């Protein structure tokens, strides 16, 4: 039986007066890949950003319900969102490396959290993170070059390395391949498969093929509602809901 990493209970999210998510109850299994699919504006990204409280940065956003990580309520006022975000890393839709060197990009997280004691240790951590993100061989000779000089796919892997460097328990990915070409996408998908052995991954994607390829569990969102969630094979081969069926066959969305 797989362990549940994140439990969300009856999540409602409002942007001002507009309700973006209603009554989402969804469990994320540990060290598995969960994909969130659905048409644009269905609330899948909003849900993802609730999991590491990124929505806190939006003033008009209001959240009801409970999200438990390892049984601990992350919206508890006693919990510091900074600590939460160190435990739950994030990779964004558009690759967003800092305008600093490749090394500094990866080293930034460990530096601010004080995870290493010496510069040698930091060097090793940066290298191992880049290796885990499958980028090391491509950049090992130019760690001091700006991160933004890399190609789009490399930049996205740099962002993954940057997230990995903090050793989070969960990595959230918000459409990580939407700005990438098919080859770069394939590399990232392989990488997701690889790192899912060690991390719990939640990925939002527009591409149903991608969801089918990389994930163990799939959740289908539609207009702020969670329509269906299940094992990826099951959702794509024998969806229980008509809407899911319509979406994966291309009738809606």
């Amino acid at each position: 039986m797989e362990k549940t990493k994140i439990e969300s209970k009856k999540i409602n999210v409002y942007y001002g007066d507009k309700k973006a998510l209603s009554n989402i109850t969804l469990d994320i299994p540990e060290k598995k890949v969960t994909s969130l699919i659905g048409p644009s504006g269905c609330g899948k990204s909003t849900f993802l950003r609730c999991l590491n409280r990124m929505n806190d940065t939006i003033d008009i956003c209001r959240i009801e319900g409970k999200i438990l990580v390892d049984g601990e309520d992350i919206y508890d006022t006693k919990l510091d969102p900074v600590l939460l975000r160190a435990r739950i890393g994030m990779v964004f839709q558009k690759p967003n490396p800092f305008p600093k060197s490749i090394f500094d990009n990866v080293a930034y997280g460990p530096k601010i959290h004080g995870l290493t004691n010496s510069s040698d240790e930091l060097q090793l951590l940066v290298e191992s993170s880049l290796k885990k993100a499958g980028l090391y061989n491509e950049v090992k000779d130019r760690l001091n070059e700006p991160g933004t000089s890399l190609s789009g796919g490399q930049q996205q892997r740099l962002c993954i390395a940057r997230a990995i460097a903090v050793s989070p328990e969960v990595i959230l990915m918000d459409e990580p391949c939407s700005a990438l070409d098919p080859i770069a996408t394939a590399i990232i998908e392989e990488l997701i498969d690889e790192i899912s052995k060690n991390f719990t991954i939640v990925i939002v994607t527009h591409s149903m093929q991608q969801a089918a390829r990389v994930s163990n569990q799939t959740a289908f969102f539609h207009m702020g509602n969670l329509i269906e969630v299940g094992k990826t094979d099951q959702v794509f081969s024998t969806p229980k809901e008509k809407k899911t069926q319509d979406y994966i066959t291309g009738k809606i969305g």
Partner: protein
Amino acid sequence: MSNTKIIRESLKKRHLAESRFKAYGILGIISATLFLMAILSTIYIEGKSAFKSTYIKINIFYDPSIIDPEGTRDIEEIKFANYRKIIKNSLKNYFPEVIGREELKNLISFISSSEEENLMKAVLENNELIGSDKIVWLKASSTIDVINKNPEMKNLPESNRLISDQELVWFNKLVLSGDVKFGLNKDFFLKADSTEPEQAGILGSILGSFFTLLITLILSFPVAVAAGVFLEELAPKNKFTDFIEININNLAAVPSIIFGLLGLAIFLNLMHLPRSAPVVGGMVLALMTLPTIIIATRVSLKAVPPSIREAAIGLGATKFQAVIHHVLPLAVPGIATGTIIGMSRALGESAPLLLIGMVAFIVDIPGSFVDSATVLPVQIYLWKSTAARGFVELTAAGVIVLLTFLILMNALAIFVRNKFEKKW
């Protein structure tokens, strides 16, 4: 009619509108350039002569009976000797035909009174001069300077000419003997204001402006950047912060003289800070510059892509760390540009400084933040409002100096923006 035909027929009109708009633009730029050139060339033509002044060659006899009658070489004795008489005697030798008391008085007015002090200094430096002859170039008074710079004035009738017929004869004699020349007007660069145009200089007000702007920068920059960062990045968005934001924007539009009134009421009358001092001027201008820098800071912070903030926050950086480590460095070029532009506005500001007494006639070069001083634009205003003929060119020369500083500062702003703008 087919669509192609409709479109083709409308094309001519559409292209015409475009070229008409272009023509307006070019016309605007040309006329603006012409006006600018007209202004600059007038100022240049009027002001350039202030950088040179007329010198008269005279054989000075350092008469021991005047400088040091007792032969003690006592410094006090030398300091307070009658150097005017020495100049007078030397002029007498040059113009033996002049004997009348009144005439001699007119003759000695050819030489700037500042030369008495210069002679004294020369003697103090070198005692050996006493009792000897020496050919020196003495600075002419402003009247002679004006005549020399505007030779056409010699043809005017006596009543319109500044100098009498007789004086003109003397002057012509000097010119014919080659004893009149133009030299660099060092006093203009090395002295402060004076009642005599040929002795008035710009250095006093340059230093006044420098001290004032230094105070302005020290006070306004850190406060404004901190306020901008707080308001833009850290403060909660609510009615209160909206209210503050509106007020800051309004403050940027408040006429500068209001800030002068505030400085007069609070800094001078309430806090009893020294009048006419750069420290007070700097405080007033800092208040005026604050909103400009705050707005520049906020605009530059806003222009930093939110993805950078998200990347840092997503890694577990605090809001403050995200701003300090990533957002603020990217906003530096914009903030620096805004600051320099704010500072150049402060440099050109005169109205608020009039109210706190920086409009005084000050002959000493300020040496500190609390010395009485005036600033460049006020100095220009003071010279402009002085009647004597020689101040006209000084005014224009002052404008040239002020414009030079403004252009340098704006060039610095452009340089900073290009240099530190990260294009990666």
